[in-house]
């Protein structure tokens, strides 16, 4: 019962938060709503006995991602309303509505399968973070490391893209062109 109440409550909040995110004209509102939604999602995680995931969700999203966004938004001067020229909004809702409808239709039917077996079962009496840790560092060690590389890539990408060197483009600078260099020196 508690589960049901929690589910519907969280669902309602999450959905409304996300709707605000995608519909709001104000970037700040959007971001706040997104952050709220994320936290709600972590609520689901706790609800689903995925404590570790819930914690990670909160830390990563509200801690890291939102901070990044916040920095970004300071840069973008996002306090003003976002002006968008949204074309054919009906099409948008048609597309997403149809997709949603079809997905819901598909998911309404319960999944029947006798052959599903848990490969990495949740063992009773083992705390979730511990279990996750074990799986993560055995089976999923490689993806974990690759994720590390991925984050490294993302870091490098973020640094060089946002870095100062990108301001002056060697690609556009015509080498050996006297005129251009003269202009540059002035």
């Amino acid at each position, binding site marked *: 019962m508690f589960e049901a109440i929690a589910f519907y409550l969280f669902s309602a909040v999450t959905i409304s938060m996300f709707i605000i995110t995608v519909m709001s004209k104000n970037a700040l509102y*959007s971001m706040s709503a997104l952050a709220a939604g994320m936290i709600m999602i972590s609520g689901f995680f706790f609800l689903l006995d995925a404590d570790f995931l819930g914690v990670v969700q909160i830390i990563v999203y509200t801690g890291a991602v939102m901070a990044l966004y916040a920095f970004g938004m300071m840069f973008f001067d996002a306090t003003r309303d976002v002006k968008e020229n949204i074309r054919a909004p009906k099409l948008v809702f048609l597309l997403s509505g149809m997709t949603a409808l079809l997905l819901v239709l598909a998911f309404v039917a319960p999944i029947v399968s006798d052959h599903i077996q848990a490969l990495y079962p949740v063992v009773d009496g083992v705390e979730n973070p511990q279990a996750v840790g074990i799986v993560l560092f055995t089976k999923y060690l490689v993806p974990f490391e690759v994720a590390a590389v991925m984050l490294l890539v993302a870091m490098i990408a973020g640094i060089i893209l946002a870095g100062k060197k990108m301001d002056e483009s060697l690609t556009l600078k015509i080498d050996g062109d006297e005129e251009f260099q003269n202009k540059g020196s002035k």
Partner: protein
Amino acid sequence: MITLSHYLILSAILFCIGLVGIYRRKNLLMLLFSTEILLNATNVGFAAISKFYGDLTGQMFAFFIVAVAASEVAVGLGLMIVWYKRRGTLDIDSMQSMHG
């Protein structure tokens, strides 16, 4: 009783909200937000499946999705900053130099 289907439907709805954002918004930042929603929507699904099947793989997937989402944010913000520096806007209507 909350079944797996409930969660999957929730996941689908959240996903479609993300899609609305993707299809609708013209601001790069908003698009980035929407992609976060997409990824998080599936996270819910994964966690739920994980719970109902008693299998940790779903949580693993969700974990990596979170990692990917974070990385995407970093790269995405990097790209946006470069673009913003050049053009002073994040509206995707400003990037139509290539077409046809």
